[in-house]
């Protein structure tokens, strides 16, 4: 997919106080590039979860470590990257929250939500250390396509 270079970037210190800012910025940018309010709401929830993970698991709430969020888009898609300075992790170690034995665990749903709200999600390592969560959502996605898949 051809992507323009990022046109909006937001950097925050690793403090949960800034999570809502990331959410507001995402919603605004998504609506600006043509997503409807409902879609923009889901996209901002995905970014919110990724940012919480970056602050909590990645940067371990070290306020001196930034979380960077980059937005780029073309006619049909918005791509958002959330980057931390943590130690990374192995997706294979992440338990499936839909597994009956995990269903009533109080945590472990963030990545699952991110995947549900977005059309493509990639996790990679940041050169120099840290995790990059790269998320794509298409305007052409049929609403409910993914999030109703598990009825």
């Amino acid at each position, binding site marked *: 997919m051809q992507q323009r270079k990022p046109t909006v970037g937001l950097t925050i210190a690793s403090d949960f106080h800034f*999570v*809502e800012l990331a959410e507001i910025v995402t919603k605004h940018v998504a609506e600006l590039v043509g997503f409807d309010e409902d879609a923009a709401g889901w996209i901002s929830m995905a970014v*919110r979860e990724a940012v919480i993970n970056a602050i909590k698991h990645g940067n371990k709430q070290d306020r001196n470590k930034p979380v960077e969020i980059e937005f780029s888009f073309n006619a049909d898609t918005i791509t958002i990257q959330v980057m931390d300075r943590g130690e990374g992790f192995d997706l294979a170690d992440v338990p499936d929250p839909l597994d009956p034995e995990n269903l*009533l665990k109080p*945590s472990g749903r963030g990545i699952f*939500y991110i995947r549900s709200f977005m059309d493509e999600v990639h996790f990679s390592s940041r050169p120099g250390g840290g995790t990059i969560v790269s998320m794509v959502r298409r305007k052409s996605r049929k609403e409910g396509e993914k999030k109703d898949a598990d009825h």
Partner: protein
Amino acid sequence: MLTIKQRDAEGITILDLSGRITIGQGSAQFRETIRQLMEQGRNRLLLNFADVSYVDSSGIGELVSAYTTLNNQGGQLKLLNLPKRIKDLLRITKLLTVFETFDDEAAALRSFQ
């Protein structure tokens, strides 16, 4: 910001929630309210979500925690007036099969005991 108003209906505690149950203040306040109610022996709870605008995975986690803690102590937790988006969040994580949910307060109250 989360606001929680408490009502009593024939021994069942109804919590009218308003605002956001999200990581930080909202989740913490929700957790603390449930803890206090259980301390007072109030373990039949109906949570009214009509005015809840936003729940994130942390808030969903608090809901699940409250549910299991209450259940383990012979109590009950049921949900009223779930907005579509929050219902979606429960559905995709298969929690809609776990929680009893209602769109009618009277019916919800009758369902206890």
